[in-house]
């Protein structure tokens, strides 16, 4: 019996996966449990093991192909198996075939669609690649309408409009799955969630004092400034469930788990690993877990459990010297806290003035769920926790 190899779902809301690599070629034998392929989701790259032993056959996805979750991309044939007839093959999900692209201005080969390869000479292809010119937009003057070098050079010399030419493209970087997902989710958030923003300054003297004390005591792990902020948010959210919620068709789902995500910058984008039940973690536990998650994120070793199920997000750009910024809510969450650096500031203190380590936090919240007063009270509580001495 042939075993189907399908594009696996590695995340809860994942619709498509990109095949990065086959570890076996078609026709090669493979044992159950051996690495079969590498799949990239919007969050991570994961090795997938063979679901059965046999011969890899009917491979229909190539490295780089984006395939809907659940679609069959290969078969593993057991001894004695033969390839199933064409009609037995699993139908592809609708909507995965790219639409034919119409040619601009109805020019070209008369059909109005590009059906196959673009005919272009090697020289034309090289020049087009170097100059970032899209061959699909050109009309060729060579045999069978093929595009020649001079067609590309002419296209470069003659801007398509009479207006000033667009800036020249140096290089085209195709979007990674992560880049595309970040774009889609941030656009979705800004377009659907009416954001409002509240800022507050926090005196970080007590946090600094505590950290200095732990350092002096030789603690194994000294929580970072951000760990303190995450801890304070987690504690604060217990009293403000509206900010730890998700808007659904049924209504606002107030979530009993408080799972705080911490944005981690990567070279190719960012990812938000999640600290589960953050409110039940001591500062030291929290620090140790967040460190491990950040390290796994940098090495791209996060598994879906590490970054799914977040209920609130903290984004900190203090390490880059940023004083203050506002963040876009990470859907489907209700709020996100943007944290700036701790910097020595001259502030009113008691009846006089003093130089104190100050930090600005800005909360972005979804106005469909929460109003300014609730958000303000939550923010005041986080501030109080950070300024108070009762860290644990």
């Amino acid at each position, binding site marked *: 019996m042939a075993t189907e190899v399908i594009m696996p779902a590695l995340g809860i809301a994942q619709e498509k996966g990109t095949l990065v690599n086959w570890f076996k070629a078609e026709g090669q034998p493979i044992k159950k449990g051996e690495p079969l392929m590498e799949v990239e989701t919007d969050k991570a790259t994961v090795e997938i093991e063979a679901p059965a032993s046999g011969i890899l056959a009917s491979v229909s996805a190539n490295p780089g192909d984006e395939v809907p979750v659940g679609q069959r991309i290969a078969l593993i044939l057991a001894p004695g198996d033969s390839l199933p007839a064409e009609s037995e093959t699993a139908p592809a999900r609708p909507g995965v075939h790219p639409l034919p692209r119409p040619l601009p201005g109805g020019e070209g080969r008369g059909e109005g669609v590009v059906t196959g390869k673009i005919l272009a000479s*090697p020289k034309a292809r*090289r020049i087009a690649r170097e100059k970032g010119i899209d061959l699909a937009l050109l009309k060729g003057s060579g*045999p069978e309408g093929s595009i020649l070098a001079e067609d590309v050079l002419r296209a470069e010399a003659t801007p398509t409009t009479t207006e000033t030419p667009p800036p020249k493209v140096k290089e085209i970087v195709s979007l990674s799955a992560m880049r595309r997902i970040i774009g889609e989710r941030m656009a979705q958030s800004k377009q659907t969630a009416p954001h409002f923003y509240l800022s507050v300054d926090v005196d970080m003297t007590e946090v600094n004092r505590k950290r200095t004390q732990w350092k002096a005591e030789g603690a194994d792990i000294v929580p970072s400034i951000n760990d303190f902020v995450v801890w304070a948010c987690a504690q604060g959210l217990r009293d403000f469930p509206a900010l730890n919620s998700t808007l659904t068709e049924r209504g606002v789902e107030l979530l009993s788990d408080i799972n705080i995500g911490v944005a981690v910058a990567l070279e190719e984008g960012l990812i938000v690993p999640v600290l589960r039940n953050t409110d039940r973690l001591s500062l030291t536990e929290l620090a140790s877990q967040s460190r491990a998650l950040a390290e796994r994120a940098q090495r791209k070793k996060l598994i879906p459990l590490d970054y799914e199920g977040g209920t609130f997000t903290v984004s900190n750009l203090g390490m880059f010297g940023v004083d203050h910024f506002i963040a876009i809510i990470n859907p489907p969450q209700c709020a996100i806290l943007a944290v700036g650096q701790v910097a020595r500031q001259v502030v009113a203190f008691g009846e006089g003035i003093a130089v104190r380590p100050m930090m600005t936090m800005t909360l972005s919240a979804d106005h469909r769920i929460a109003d300014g007063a609730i958000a303000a009270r939550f923010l005041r509580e986080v501030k109080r926790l950070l300024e108070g001495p009762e860290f644990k």
Partner: protein
Amino acid sequence: MKARAKQDAAPVALSREITFAQAINEALAEEMRRDPRVFVIGEDVGEAGTPFKVLSGLIQEFGPERVIDSPISEAGITGLGVGAAMTGMRPVVDIMFGDFLTLTMDQVVNQAAKIHYMSGGKLKVPMVVRTTLGATRRSAAQHSQSLHALFSHVPGLKVALPSTPYDAKGLLKTAVRDDNPVIFFEDKMMYQLKGPVPEEEYTIPFGVADIKRPGTDITIVATSSMVQVALAAAEKLAGERISAEIIDVRTTAPLDKETLIESAKKTGRAMVVDEGYERYGVTAEIASVIADSAFYYLDAPVKRIGAMHVPVPFSPALEDLTVPTPETVVEAAKTLCGRI
């Protein structure tokens, strides 16, 4: 990358013009005067000075011991040449028609080409086999072939294909001085071609192609008399505002790949013209070299024009159709440039 020789194009203003045959004659005479080990052997090379009168006068100057009339036995005289070369002489073996090279194949391919290698470098074969190629002399199928591809194919042999009197003299002197067996092909239809040749001594290194005419639109690589055909074609193409660059490889082994590739990269179009049979021929090898290294600079596939895949006919009307002409080269060049 090999060093380029500086002096390898004919000086611009030369007062003296001689024929291709005279250039060959001069080269041999000078080398025989310079080196007493050099001798000539072949059929009718003595008093007759070959049927093409290329060697006239040599026997008078050097005597029958150094200009040896041989029996009609190409295998024999070539074997004699291999042995003489191995034992310290520098023979120049004359094979009247290139078609007769087939009789020398074992001596050339299995002996001359291999001995230096198989003796661990202890023996060498500084032999030149001078012979002819080229059709359109109404000499029929056994006296009209251009078989230089067969020898360009074999490791251990060098193959020279001069296209002008100047190149003929300079390349032949280099061939005589080379310690390896050299097959030297002269187009019998070019013997009366005149061209500038300086009085003073010069040689032309092997493996250095010559740009016979610079151009910008298409590269035409040619060998031997096909260089003259290509130059005539370039003249016609210029009238149609197509600027052809004509490259003479001068030796197919060693082959100056770099010059071919650079030219093809510059013009973006290339064709190869050779009088040998097109199938599996010199044109195929050169086209492949260009396609391999200049692929991303080409606007069109590399075009080959060689001799038709038929025994050369005796009928003049038919014979002329089997080899490249300026007209066929012009037509192919215009097609490559999108002008037809």
